[in-house]
């Protein structure tokens, strides 16, 4: 029982990282109808930005954190202008290929600067964790869970209770109609890219002290997050979060009880099972959209 609780805590912590990246996937997909294959690279770049500021330059952790997130906002903006905007009137295929191209460019740019050697980033807290009864709560995992809860609440408030959130939703549901009402569609999409890049970056910064900071971390996280969106129901915000958490828990339990080397395999086994037996995901087809 103690082990179960411990594994649950760890699983939710790692699942929260997948959830954040999955949320970025879903928001961009809803706004542009395109999957952004560079979403994972946002996490990787943010983690390296932390290495630059907190490790190499030795700046305070919180300052580095803020600068890294600001850098991600800027990257989201550039990404939108350079990758999506010029192709926005084309079909989805050129855009998807452009995001794959951007992901290769980002990964190799970082590789050119830092080389293949993984970097180490310390956690936010000095204290490694606290013992709560039978469960040891690692401070970094606690931070990840707290930040994710705060972001899910913020996300809900933003999309459900602000006019800007409603305009973003309107844009994702019918761009032409949104423009007829005077909503600036290109501004809404810009905001979506910035927000998604910051979400992805946040996930990368939070998970970096648990994993190593490496070129490959982006694609690993992105694959899991992508699987999470399919498990949750593609295009569904709640589905992305639940899917991410579920995936984290499943792979943690799988690693503990079945096999550690096959840890990554469990996530994809679940993905394949969903694709066969419930391709619409947990929350799929809840809202039938009328033509």
């Amino acid at each position, binding site marked *: 029982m103690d082990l179960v609780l411990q594994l649950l805590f760890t699983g939710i912590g790692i699942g929260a990282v997948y959830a954040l990246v999955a949320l970025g996937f879903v928001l961009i997909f809803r706004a542009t109808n395109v999957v952004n294959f560079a979403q994972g690279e946002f996490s990787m770049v943010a983690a390296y930005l932390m290495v630059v500021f907190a490790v190499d330059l030795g700046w305070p952790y919180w300052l580095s954190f803020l600068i890294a997130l600001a850098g991600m906002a800027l990257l989201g903006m550039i990404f939108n202008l350079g990758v999506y905007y010029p192709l926005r009137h084309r079909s989805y295929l050129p855009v998807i290929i452009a995001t794959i191209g951007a992901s290769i460019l980002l990964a190799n740019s970082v590789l050119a600067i830092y080389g293949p050697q993984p970097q180490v980033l310390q956690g936010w807290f000095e204290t490694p964790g606290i013992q709560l009864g039978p469960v040891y709560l690692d401070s970094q995992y606690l931070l990840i869970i707290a930040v994710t809860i705060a972001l899910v609440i913020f996300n809900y408030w933003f999309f459900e209770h602000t006019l800007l959130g409603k305009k973003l939703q309107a844009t994702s549901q019918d761009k032409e109609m949104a423009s*007829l009402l005077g909503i600036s569609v290109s501004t809404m999409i810009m905001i979506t890219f910035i927000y998604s890049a910051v979400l992805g970056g946040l996930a990368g910064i939070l998970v970096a002290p648990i994993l190593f900071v490496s070129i490959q971390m982006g694609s690993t996280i992105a694959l899991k997050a992508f699987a999470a969106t399919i498990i949750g129901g593609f295009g569904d915000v709640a589905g992305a979060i639940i899917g991410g958490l579920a995936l984290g828990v499943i792979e943690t339990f799988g690693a503990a009880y079945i096999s550690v080397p096959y840890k990554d395999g469990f996530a994809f086994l679940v993905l394949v099972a969903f694709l066969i037996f419930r391709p619409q995901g947990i929350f799929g087809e809840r809202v039938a959209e009328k033509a």
Partner: protein
Amino acid sequence: MPLLEVRNLVVRYGEIEALRGVSFSVEEGKVVTLLGANGAGKSTTLRAISGLTKPASGEIVFDGEPISGLGPETIVRRGISHVPEGRRVFPGLTVKENIMLGASNRRAPKAQLSREADAMFDLFPDIRKFSNALGWTLSGGQLQMVAVARGLMAKPKLLLLDEPSLGLAPVIVQAVFRIISEIRRSTTVLLVEQNARMGLSVADYGYVLETGRIVLGGKPDELWGNEAIRAAYLGGHAKVPA
């Protein structure tokens, strides 16, 4: 000077010429209707005016300023609100949210928009009880009311209405047209209709479009009185030979 003047408007979809030099005008305070069969170019005309479709040539002058070639976001700020074919109510937003977003062309705080949307339900009492229902749950007639209410939230000088009667039961069509005759007290309306009888019943002036050209214009009783026109374009019955 008319509120809206369209001169020699040409619109092409690839090889196809949808509008071949359309000219007409809309006087302030009037209801003008564009009639014609399917594919005559009625919707294309409205799409060109609101900026959804770029004209190949021709001029559109609104309120004394050329607007041809501007984007839809700019044109709605100038005072033209377009309620497009098919209603296009956002399916995942509530009725009230849909209506509030109709004011996206002007800056106003959320609380004020909420009050204005509530006031809008006085004009559309039938949809008041669906205020918090999601768009996709509504029927065609209710969606049409939401779409018109949303269009009016822009406080337009000119309202473009595209086929408001399409697919609605006759009793609902009556209700929609009662609302149009309400609206005309404060707003100029350019109405596109396939249902010529309904269109002419509220209009001050009508134009008949045929394959991308205006073939006729006149007051409703003139158009309705012309037997040949009635038979050919307005869906009336040809006169049985005596």
